[in-house]
């Protein structure tokens, strides 16, 4: 499985597994010795020398290009500025941080919350250093009408989105000042309803083919925001024949509806699976969520128990995860 392979090469994942192993050991016998090789980072060759803390000297051959996370000290040595892994790409040298705030790039799908309504735009909190902005001209009008925005639309701005609404959007542009401009010109994007939000660090959600996914075997829809905000909701009803026909999703009819208890239970299980995956440092993809969801059902874990690492441990969920990760990465 692709998600598992990338998870073990991704350091954050490996380290978190390690941390877990260490924590358990420390409680049991008060020593940090690791006799549980399957949870160890050591199984990844070549990783030892690459981890750095701020202020550590990064070894570099002469002529290396200094990338993100590396600065030159007064004595001419290159030092790391964040905790992370040193990466070389030809001459470029950079440090990939273990954890950082989301910095947008064009085309990312994000989940955000409207914090302010201004005259012709909304300020959206998406977990970046600055607020992102969604202009009135960059949204999709209800009923899929295509027209210029009028003054009337400006007056009715709160009918589209109001403060504290959660929306999904796409990053349209990164301004020179680092400010992000968003757009929801597709009817897939827009207000999010009938679900729950799970906020995780943005490193756990990579760019993938699909960010708005209906999990087929689970029957729940997830919006995997690149900013690490994951929305889990009941799948929207499709008007008409029940099949998606047009590419702009204009048939999708998303509105507030009553979610039945069974669906609620599934939604909360998926949300907790997401948080559980992050707790073990694994990436969030549709595959990984489905795997954990099904395993938790098989092991007879209640949805809330997924958040309790001790219960996950005793039920054998961790072994299953580790087995999956190590097996599919060929070790």
């Amino acid at each position, binding site marked *: 499985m692709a998600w598992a392979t990338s998870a073990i090469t991704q350091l954050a994942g490996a*380290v*978190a597994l*390690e*941390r877990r192993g*260490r*924590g358990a050991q*420390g*409680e049991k016998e008060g020593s*940090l*010795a*690791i006799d549980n090789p399957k949870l160890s*980072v*050591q199984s990844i060759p070549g*990783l*030892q020398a690459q*981890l*750095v*803390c*701020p*202020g*550590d*000297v990064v070894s570099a051959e002469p002529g290396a290009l200094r990338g993100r*996370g590396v*600065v030159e*000290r*007064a*004595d001419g040595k290159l*030092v790391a*500025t*964040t*905790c*992370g892994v040193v990466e070389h790409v030809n001459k470029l040298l950079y440090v990939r*941080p*273990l*954890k*950082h*705030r989301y910095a947008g790039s064009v085309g990312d799908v994000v989940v955000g919350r409207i914090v302010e309504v201004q005259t012709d735009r909304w300020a959206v*909190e998406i977990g970046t*250093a*600055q*607020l992102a902005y969604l202009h009135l001209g960059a949204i999709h009008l209800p009923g899929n009408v295509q027209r210029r925005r009028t003054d009337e639309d400006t007056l009715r701005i709160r009918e589209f989105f109001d403060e504290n609404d959660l929306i999904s959007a796409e990053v349209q542009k990164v301004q020179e*000042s*680092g400010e992000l401009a968003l757009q929801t010109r597709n009817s897939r994007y827009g207000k999010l309803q009938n679900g729950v939000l799970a*906020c995780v660090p943005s490193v756990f959600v990579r760019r993938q083919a699909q960010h708005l996914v209906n999990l087929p075997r689970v029957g729940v829809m997830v919006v995997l925001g690149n900013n690490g905000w994951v929305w889990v909701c009941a799948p929207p009803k499709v008007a008409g024949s029940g099949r998606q026909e047009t590419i702009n999703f204009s048939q999708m009819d998303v509105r507030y509806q009553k979610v039945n208890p069974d669906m609620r239970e599934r939604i909360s299980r998926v949300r907790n699976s997401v948080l559980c995956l992050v707790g073990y440092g694994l990436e969030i993809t549709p595959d990984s969520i489905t795997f954990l969801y099904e395993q938790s059902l098989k092991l007879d874990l209640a949805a809330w128990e997924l958040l309790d*690492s001790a219960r996950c441990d005793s039920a054998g969920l961790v072994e299953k995860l580790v087995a999956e990760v190590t097996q599919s990465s060929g070790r």
Partner: protein
Amino acid sequence: MAMEVITPEGFRFDGRRVNEPRGIQCCVGGCGREADGYAVFELGSTKAVAYVYGPMEAKQRSQSLHDRATLSCTLSTATFATVARNFGRKGDRQSQERSMWLQQTFESAILLEQYPRSQIRLFVQVLQAEGSPVAAAINAATLALADAGIPMRDLVVACTAGLLGRKPAMDLSREEEQAGGAAVLVASLTGSKRVSLLEVESKVPEGFFAPLYDMALQGCHAIAEQMRRPRNPDIQRSLCFLPPRTCLLEHASEGFSLRKSRRKA
């Protein structure tokens, strides 16, 4: 004359030699999803907890600068941290001044120009003040900033040194601080061997400043070494940044029981 502070064999009250810091415990990250960075640092029984939020949009427009991030620091001391309990003294002069020290220390270390128009907020609380509380607070703040992934030129590490009798000693405990000898607090960028904070609040006898300063710097390096290096050499060195999660629970339960006891009284 006060009591003997160093035995003829060269040991202090708590059994350390003059050039030994107290035992260190770090607990970084893992807990507290709300904050971007979180750390607890213990220096002997002195304990400080730090939370970092940001970089994020400034709460007030006036707080943001167009070319770099602003840093706001708050250092407080818990009411139960000291021997004498003092309730309702939030934002007194001492903690305001100490917050200022923290801010100046970290403004020189953090690469603020990478985040224009945003704000980084740092909250440090001393949970137990058993000597050198500010040093512990600075160390906790460094770890929390590192956990939040905020780029820094170097790890900022602080340590105190003071005169015991006529001998300079590293990392004063509360008894030693109260003995009334001269004391200095040094925070340094350990890798580049630069000093970012030097506080001398008492009179230092002539000729003793240099040895005290050197002793504090040595302490900084010793502490930084332990912060970076895990106790077990087999484990990755950066893993000292990823301790078990039980820490916050313990801390929370501690706080809880304290709150209860106060309500009873």
